[in-house]
């Protein structure tokens, strides 16, 4: 298991294949590149935002194999072979809004919108497993996201409204 001169070779860009929003994508990334920079820079999916880059703000949250993940705390090379869902894949292919997007729009749950893509992905994960969450469960999920505009009240209301839409109410 001898590794000859590992540093130059092993830090070079390498090919990555992953499924993003149902489409197989190929790209190249150096090991140092994180997932959100790869999505934005290499795959040109700029809907996911980069905030604090140390896992606090939640702006870069995407779903990796169905679970919410900080895009800044995962390397692109670690996403090789995974199935990623980003904000670009939340609405229907024909452009119809997801119930979450409808509710955010109707209830004014965003102002500047910078934090919104990340919040929507976390909320989508919550509603996928529980279409009748209480306010506490919603706030628990939101605790992983910073929004400096809204004060969160309308975001909570909108997520509860989206759950109601998904229940057919």
């Amino acid at each position, binding site marked *: *298991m*001898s*590794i000859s001169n*590992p*540093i130059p*070779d*092993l*830090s070079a860009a390498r090919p990555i294949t992953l499924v993003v929003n149902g489409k197989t994508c190929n790209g190249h990334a*150096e*090991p*140092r590149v*994180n997932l959100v*920079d790869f999505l934005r820079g290499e795959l040109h999916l700029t809907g996911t935002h980069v905030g604090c*880059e*140390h*896992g606090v703000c*939640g702006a870069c*949250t995407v779903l990796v194999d169905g*679970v*919410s*993940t*900080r895009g*800044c*705390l*995962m*390397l692109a*090379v*670690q996403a090789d072979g995974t199935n990623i869902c980003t904000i670009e894949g939340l609405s229907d292919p024909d452009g119809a809004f997801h119930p979450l997007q409808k509710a955010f729009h109707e209830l004014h749950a965003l102002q500047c919108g910078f934090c919104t893509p990340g919040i929507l992905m*976390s909320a989508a*994960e919550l509603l996928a497993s529980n279409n009748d969450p209480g306010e506490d469960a919603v706030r*628990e*999920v939101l*605790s*992983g996201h910073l929004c400096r505009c809204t004060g969160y009240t309308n975001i909570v209301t909108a997520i509860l409204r989206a759950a109601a839409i998904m229940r057919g109410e």
Partner: protein
Amino acid sequence: MKAPAFAYLAPTTVEQALGYLHEVEGARVLAGGQSLMSMLNMRYAFPDCLIDINRIPALSYIRESGNLVEFGSMTRQRDVEFSNIVATRLPLLREAILHVGHRQTRNRGTVGGSLCQLDPSAEIPTIATAMDAKVSVASVRGTRAIDMADFPAGYMNPAMEPDEMLVSIGIEPWPQGHGHAFLEFSRRHGDFAIVSTAVLLLFGEDGLLSRVSITLGGIAAAPVRVTLAENVLLQTRGTQRDVERAVAICLAVDSTSDTYIPAWYRQRLAGALTGRALNIALKRAGKQ
């Protein structure tokens, strides 16, 4: 900021990972990445090489083995949160795990990663200290067990050699009927605790406390067992006067000061939280 350049290896077996750790200079193990990745992005860490153990499925499990519950080092915190074994046999851990970061970070964060990061206010090292866990570390030379009490060599510094890797942790559940409580104080939910406290207690047939464990996190370089307070409670009935004597010891425990939090504030939190936790644990043990 962006991470510095590093070499990257992704072994698929423990043997392969240990071989790399032995051979490559300046390597660091990448577990869930919820601390190390941010340290790389902020350029607090400059490893020459990352050995990513996320592709080693053999390191991810929760199982009962004899009188222990064992966790593979790559077990996600989320799996701990939803484990039936943890909920029924390690209720203290179940209560504490809900305080670890946020849902989004628990999805990636691991048991072993948190133990090796060894933040003094992190929940998993605090529970491991409270429950006298045994940590297993491996290298090409073999595997050795370390008592959790001996695991911290200093502030955020586990007693491991550079080529060793944590592979599992074993925790012995307390008997049915024990009381437990975990409380912490932080400015926002999900932040690192300023002070946390973990309490376990067990009454004997004679109605006296036969086992007591009191641990404070965030107060010193590593989580600390408050043996003096434990001893004050042993062989008592756990009355309010007994609780007050234990609290008095916690109020005087050696504490660190930093830019934001003075030591006296940590001491007051230690006393208040431990008093509350003892009362919750006593109630759960059927007393009061």
